[in-house]
């Protein structure tokens, strides 16, 4: 068997050469489970879809056939995608959407591929149920677990998987990806700097209507925070409010997804109750993530602004500045150093624990900004 399988669909995933090379050699004789581990925005989902396409395509991922097209859209009948509903992946979800299909013959001839997004959100009972399948893997099934917090997965589950590591994308890579897509070099550099190694976020920075509005909010929040404790609370309020507005802007997405399940008068069809409930749960989760993402973008921008302040004082030129187009904020240097620390701590805390109260974390961070 040739070890250098040509798989256009896998080669097309950019910025993660080691991970993709590993997956490419795995296509011909796949192991039954893989853990795709690495930070958000590094391309794990893209890689999982491409790998699924390679596993379902007769030619190992030509990128052109029906199987490839459907797998890349996550519409392939033999591809089963599971993600948290609400906060967790529940044991019922594992039973109904993984076990059920894992122990049945495939809808179309060929393999079955199961993708678990945010696998670290499996609650203990769900992880046990999944483990049972991984211990006695059904024939012709491949499981792909995705996680930005792999250390939160039970060791028993991880030990059943081949771990494929994804790194944060480099700034150079993001700049070239954006400029290739027609973004001006200046804008690309700025977006790359502000994205924290997350290509998806960098793309949104340059393409979304609001563009860099969140950075204006960071400027405003820092100005408020400088005014003292009351200002710090207002700064937190400002960001929470902005995140909420951003989330509400997403509601049209749900409307479009629900449309096929509604009757002519826009009421839910009786037969689709369960489907509708699931879509709503999934959407709630997306909204919550969008809110978190927005807060992180504002904090990252605030952190960048403060870093620029420090850099300007120590005589750094434009190449060390992050906000290539803005004058650094008017904060004392000593305070700026402490403030960067406070904001980065807040970002880390919010990324680590999805259950934290956002407003409280923001208030504590901004209280330390005033210095």
């Amino acid at each position, binding site marked *: 068997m040739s070890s250098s399988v040509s798989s256009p669909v896998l080669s097309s995933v950019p910025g993660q050469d080691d991970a993709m090379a590993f997956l490419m050699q795995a296509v011909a004789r796949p192991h039954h489970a893989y853990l795709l581990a690495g930070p958000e925005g590094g391309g794990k989902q893209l890689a999982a879809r491409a790998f699924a396409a390679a596993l379902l395509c007769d030619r190992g991922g030509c990128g052109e056939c029906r199987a490839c097209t459907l797998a890349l859209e996550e*519409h392939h009948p033999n591809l089963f995608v599971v993600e948290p509903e609400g906060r967790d992946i529940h044991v019922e979800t594992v039973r109904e959407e993984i076990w059920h*299909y894992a*122990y*049945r013959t495939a809808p179309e001839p060929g393999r079955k591929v199961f993708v678990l997004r945010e696998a670290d959100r499996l609650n203990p009972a769900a992880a046990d149920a999944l483990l049972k399948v991984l211990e006695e893997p059904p024939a012709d099934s491949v499981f792909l677990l995705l996680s930005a917090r792999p250390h939160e997965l039970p060791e028993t589950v991880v030990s059943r998987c081949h771990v494929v590591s994804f790194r944060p994308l480099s700034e150079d890579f993001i700049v070239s990806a954006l400029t290739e897509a027609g973004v001006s070099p200046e804008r690309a550099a700025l977006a790359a700097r502000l994205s924290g190694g997350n290509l998806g976020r960098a793309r949104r920075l340059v393409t979304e209507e609001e563009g860099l509005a969140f950075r204006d909010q960071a400027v405003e929040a820092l100005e408020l925070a400088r005014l003292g404790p009351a200002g710090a609370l207002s700064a937190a309020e400002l960001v929470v409010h902005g995140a909420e507005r951003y989330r509400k802007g997403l509601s049209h997405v749900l409307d479009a997804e629900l449309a*096929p399940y509604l*009757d002519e008068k826009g009421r839910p069809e009786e*037969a*689709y109750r369960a*489907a509708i409930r699931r879509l709503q749960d999934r959407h709630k989760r997306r909204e919550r993530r969008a809110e978190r993402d927005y807060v992180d973008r504002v904090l990252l921008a605030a952190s960048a602004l403060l870093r620029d302040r420090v850099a300007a004082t120590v005589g750094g030129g434009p190449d060390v500045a992050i906000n290539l187009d803005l004058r650094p904020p008017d904060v004392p240097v000593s305070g700026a150093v402490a403030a960067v620390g406070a904001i980065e701590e807040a970002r880390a805390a919010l990324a680590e624990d999805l259950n934290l109260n956002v407003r409280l974390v923001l208030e504590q961070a901004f209280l330390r900004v005033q210095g």
Partner: protein
Amino acid sequence: MKFRCDRDALSEALQTVQRAVSSRPGIPALTGVLLELSDEGTLTLTTTDLEVSARLSIEVQVNETGRALVPARLLADTVKSLSDAPVEIEADQSQARIRCAAYEGALRLLPVEDFPALQQPSGTRVVVEVGGFAEAVGQVGRAASRDEARPVLTGVLMEVSREGVTFVATDSYRLAVRELVATAGGEAKVIVPERAMSEAGRAAAAEEKGEIEIFVDASQVSFGVAQLSLTSRLIEGEFPNFRQLLPEAYENRLTVSRQQLTDAVRRVGLLARDNTPVRMEFNALGVKLSSSSPDLGQAVEAVEATYEGEDVTAAFNPNYLADGLSAATGESVRLEVRDGLKPGVVKGEGEEFTYLVMPVKLPAPVA
């Protein structure tokens, strides 16, 4: 694609195949019904939920062949609400136009390439009479487990030999076995999801006479009744060796009116809550049933019957026992028992149906 047909025929066909439309989100194509027109004047309607797919053909006046994937629910509701006049449906790349009398509507199409590629029925061919098939499905289906924790038990085992078909289901508390005479082209052994089995049973029951044509291969089973073909995925795994569970013979046998015993078990069972069993004392006069729940009270009923064997006391879950009694056929039923620790066996008047029910261990008698 363009055709013209009778409203009632189309409406009925849409209602029938709609039972296999998916409510799973994620793949919008599964909410659709695939309409395919052939040169021979046939419209074939197909739906699937990835586990069961339904395919039905009706005669129509074909103006232009082709295929289109139309939202199933919307189309079914629309056609059902049309006035009683010929219906014309014409689809282009993006929408299906529906015309009937003065009505004209257009439904947006779903992407036809996204619809799963269904396999033609193939493999071992088995032919059975519709009445017998519907009866067999009704007899064993209820014993299948609803618990996804043991996937093989959520299905019905279908064992095909030259002599016929054996249907088996168990949830580990009871076991139902039904033998059925059939014409079979070979041997096969598959586990069919219970839902698919009961859909096929439903379709068979709707026909007064005729045959059901079954095809079994390694990945699917298809049931063809009249113009409808139902195809199901199979459950993978090892079904329990049920023959090992069936007892050789018992010395103690109650022969009793099926209706009388069923009613008594249900009545006395009303006071058997939260897994408390119905106690059955077998003696020369027949059987005495009793139950008691600390919070509810107690009930006793004696049923006269013919009993051959030693006096025995056993206890059973009343719902499981009643299920077995009502699944058996004929005026009288046989209930065979060994002692309080061995399963009870229900048999109807013939030998083709056997229902095993696990005993509930009785607490030691209080003084």
